Structure formats: C-alpha cells, structure tokens
C-alpha cells in the first residue's frame, strides 16, 4: 500500500471508549464485544466506502460490510500482527467483495481475460484535450462518484482498488488473479473512460472522435 493511505502502526489515539486500537485488537481476540465495537467504529467508513464503490449499491454494500466485519470477528484470533491491522482488515474486505462479485457471475471481475470488458474499445483511441475542457479543478466528489458508479464492474473494480484504495498493481494482480500488465492496462482504460464520462457531464458533449 502506498504510505499515505495506510498507517503502519495501530492508531495510538484513544477512541471514545478510551481503548486504543492495539488494546481493542487484543480485546477482540479474546471475544470482547466492546473491543470489537471499537474496531468497527475505527474502520467502518473505510470498509463501507470500498464496498459501496465496488458494488455501486447501498444495500449490497451494507451486506458486504456486515460480512466483512463478521469475518473479522471470526478471524481476529488469527491476526498475528505481521501486517498493519488496517491492511489486514482491508484485504479481508476486498476478498469479501471480490467473492461476492464472482458469485454474481460477473465475468469482468476476473481481469485475466483476453477479451476487453468494453468490446467497443478496440485499442487506444486518439484522445483530445482542449484548454476550456480541462478537468483540472472541475471534478467534485459527487460527479466523480457518479462517474465511478457508471463504469462497468471490471473497470470500476480496478479503479477503486488502485486509485481510490491505493493498492499497488502487484497486489491487485495477486488478488484478482491476473497479470500486472493486465492490471495496468485495465486501470488506464478505466481512467480514460472516466475522463470521457466526466467531460460528458461537464459539457453535455462527448469528446471529439
């Protein structure tokens, strides 16, 4: 994970309950419900945001968040501290989401495929940019969220994992069972697609062919 995203040591700040994250982890390992609740409070936004973005659907995201924390509860006893807790929990959540997407039978979730998830894009198109259509300073959260939600699941997954959640390509390749090259090229296409959508939102016109 890129350093600006995760924290390498458990947060030492005390939460409302007075427990530090490290203490809550120890408590959760012993089955203490209060500690588990502390961990939920500390990490719920991260997990939920990830689920919401990867599925684009509040109900599914809530179910997956529930599932992720349930698995955390079952498995926290096995957490041995070799990685940061947040990293561990995050991976667990990504697995839950990916498993869910796989079950839904969405072929795009596996990036290891020779077929492009967007078959109409045969290859790199000539992209245009003009000064007045620059996106700099023009992307607000709502627009971006909407744009991400309208991506196809394959593009959405790769974009969320890399650009939003900060996973590296080698980590994504491992999780998705694809090659690093695949991950990179899908990410690029996802970004290009987002640019198209955002420009459309801004100008009401698609970019010139």
């Amino acid at each position, binding site marked *: 994970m890129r350093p*600006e*995203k995760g924290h390498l040591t458990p947060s030492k700040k005390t939460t409302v309950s007075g427990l530090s994250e490290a203490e809550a982890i120890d408590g959760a390992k*012993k*089955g*203490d*419900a*209060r500690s*588990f*609740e502390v961990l*939920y409070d500390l990490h*719920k*936004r*991260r997990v*939920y*945001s*990830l689920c*919401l*973005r990867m599925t684009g659907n509040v109900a599914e*995201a*809530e179910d997956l*968040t*529930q599932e992720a*924390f*349930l698995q955390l*509860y*079952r*498995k926290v*006893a*096995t957490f041995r501290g070799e990685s940061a807790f947040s990293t561990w929990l995050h991976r667990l959540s990504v697995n839950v989401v990916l498993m869910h997407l796989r*079950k839904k039978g969405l072929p795009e979730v596996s990036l290891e495929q020779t077929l492009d998830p967007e078959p109409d894009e045969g290859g*790199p198109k*000539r*992209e*245009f*940019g*003009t*000064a007045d*259509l*620059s*996106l*700099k*300073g023009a*992307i607000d*959260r709502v627009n*971006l969220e909407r744009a*991400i939600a309208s991506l196809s699941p394959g593009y959405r997954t790769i*974009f969320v994992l890399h*650009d*939003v959640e*900060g996973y590296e390509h080698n980590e994504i390749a491992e999780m998705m069972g694809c090659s690093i090259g695949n991950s*990179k*090229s899908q*990410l*690029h296409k996802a*970004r*290009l697609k*987002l*640019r198209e959508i*955002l*420009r459309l939102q801004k100008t009401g016109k698609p970019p010139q062919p």
Partner: protein
Amino acid sequence: MNCMEFQNALPDLLDGGAAPEVEEHPKSCTACAGLVADLKEISAQARLLAASEEPGEHVWARIMESVESDALGHTEVPAPLRALWWGAGQSRWAIPVWAASVAALLLLGFEFNTLRQAPATPPEGVAVVQPAALVDNDDLQLLSVVEKRSPAKRARYKAHLEAVNASIRDAKRSVEEDPANELAQERLIQAYDQKSALYEMAMTRSMQ
C-alpha cells in the same frame, strides 16, 4: 514521437516509469498535455474518496445479530455433510486398527466421559449479553469440566474451541460454495476431527 505512440506509453508515464522522450511530447502538444493533466486530476481526486462514506446505524445492529446467532448451535453437522464425514472417515482408516487404538486407550484408562452432567446451559438470551463468544452449549459444558481441574486452563481451551469452531465454519462455507472441491471436503472432515480430538484431550485429563 506522435500522439498515438505517446498515448501507448502513457500508462508508464503516469506510473512514473517512462523514457525521457515520452515526457517531452506533451511539452509541444496541448492535446496530449491536456489528457495527462486530466488523468492526473482524476487520480488525485479519487484518492480523496477513500473512507468517505458512512454506513447506516442499523449495519452494526445486524453485525451483532449475526455474531450472536453464530454463537448458538453452529457446530451441528447437517445431515448430508454428516454422511460425507462418516463415510469418508471410514474409508480412510482401516476400521479395526483405529478401533483397536481406541479400545487400547479405553483399557488404559483414557475414559471418554460423557457430558451428561447437570448442564451449565446459560439461560435463554444470556448469550446476547456476554462478551460475544463463539462456543455452543456443549462447549460450555466442556469448559466447566476443564475449569474444575484447572481454572487457568479454561481460558486457553476456550480460545482453542473458538478457533476450531471458526475452522469448522470456514470449512463448511468452502464446501457449500464448491461442493466438488476435494480439498474443501478434507478441511471440513479434519476440522470436525480436530474438535473431537480437543474434546478427548480436555476430558481425559480431567480424571487425573
């Protein structure tokens, strides 16, 4: 370098690993420069989205419900899986020899106590209040037996029971998800065997 070539190399440029001539192109091409700027802006804005959403209050309530229902009666063997378990178990080990070992243990005084004591069942609904635990009623009885021998060991056995129950649950799920997976089946069989081994080890020592 023309725009097409530049755009082919663009992913590497954005990743930070492109040749110098790639970086040169946008300096003289506003179209491509605009493209690069846009893509960078998209990534930059995306970074700010992490952990920006908050789940509804009810999500926590539902999590706690699942944890509690997990804690009750989750180690029963569902009928079809039971057949799998015993059937496979029997073909795996030459029955006479294993039975002989068990018989030997019995003769040697490794009595397998039954748990037909006054059950230490918590009253209905208490499980909700306790620190959510992953053990069922049989397990609680076992733990009370362990405690009589050594209160210090109760906590350790509780942890082992929780871990083995978790392994049963995880193995069950794997089998449900992919019934044809041999490795998942084996994990489930072994998870149950682990649990009975734990029971035996806990019970036989309580006689010392």
